[in-house]
């Protein structure tokens, strides 16, 4: 904006006043129509903006433990293409991930390793329990299998299926996006900064 260049002459005569006013008008009119910023300004709430950014760039931490991981891979590849929903960046490092997709049977031997990876993920983070095994132990009512990953970490979305089809995983991801859309992000950020 360039309005600061135009200053009103308060002590001059009438014609000078008129001239100055015309200059201001023309400059204001020029400033109001700036083709460079037209369409680039959006007015919104901070919550909505933050949630919009978060939900459309959910980077998954693929915790592939069994056959569900095959469907997870299919979801990532071109036929189903999870990148349409902003989640194509599978990072095998928990430090760069937003959502952990627990895909498969969690054995007791693996359980604490899954928990450790979850603990290494930075906030805000979400968890999808993909398939029957991750959700409830599935058909493995067994001495060796953890009966649902929700015993160890908070799960946001459970996906049924054995294994679920890629469409189901995408549906789960969209449900998670809806959930993120309703979060009070600024309140959470403030309370986090108060705690720390």
């Amino acid at each position, binding site marked *: 904006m360039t309005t600061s260049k135009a200053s009103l002459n308060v002590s001059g005569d009438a014609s000078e006043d008129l001239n100055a006013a015309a200059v201001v008008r023309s400059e204001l009119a020029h400033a109001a129509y700036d083709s460079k910023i037209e369409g680039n300004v959006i007015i919104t709430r901070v919550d909505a903006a933050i949630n919009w950014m978060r939900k459309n760039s959910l980077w998954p931490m693929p915790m592939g433990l069994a056959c569900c991981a095959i469907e997870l891979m299919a979801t990532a590849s071109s036929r189903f293409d999870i990148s349409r929903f902003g989640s194509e960046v599978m990072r095998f490092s928990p430090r760069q991930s937003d959502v952990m997709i627990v895909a498969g049977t969690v054995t007791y*031997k693996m*359980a*604490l390793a899954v928990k450790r990876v979850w603990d290494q993920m930075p906030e805000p983070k979400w968890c999808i329990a993909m398939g029957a095994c991750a959700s409830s*132990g599935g058909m493995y*009512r067994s*001495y*060796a*299998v953890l009966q649902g990953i929700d015993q160890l970490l908070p799960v946001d979305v459970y996906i049924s299926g054995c294994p679920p089809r890629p469409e189901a995983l995408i549906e789960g991801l969209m449900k998670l996006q809806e959930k993120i859309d309703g979060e009070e992000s600024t309140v959470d950020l403030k309370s986090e900064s108060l705690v720390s």
Partner: protein
Amino acid sequence: MNTNQAAQTVSEKFEGSTVLEFRGEHTVTVALTDFRLVMEYCKNELGFDMLLDASSVDNSGDDPRFALVYELATLDDSVHLRVKTHIAECEEVPTVSDLWATSDWHEREIWDMMGIKFSGHPDLRRILMWEGYTYHPLRKEFPLAGKPSEMPDVAFTGEAPLEGGPFVTSAGAGSRVKAEPRAK
């Protein structure tokens, strides 16, 4: 040498061993005291170069309680022989991991799952469950649902909800509906 000849040779050489033939498969059951000698004989004299599998059975209530089953074969796959031996709960079995290296891990699995000890084994650690887990899950007295245990920073276990199970299919029940898995 065919399978039948191999089985007969073993049973003739070692007193007290029995041969069972079933659908072309031959099983030699030997006494535990002879077991190591039988295995050495099979490897060195009969040319069974390969150990296909080693497993164990819990005949809970019988005496002796456990059975060990070793599946031997020649490298060209022409001759197969199954060697069985029975052992009681307190006894140890001599290892054959120096004859067939593959039995190293098989015997570790038997120790882990069934709790049968092998004397002379170079590295008898658990292989599936973790060190510190106190049970042997494939024993008959161990419940399918498991038992709670806790090893800090290593692993924990809980009891699985069986909801009236375990669910068992009925083989030969006539119809698919009747054969469906049900709690028994």
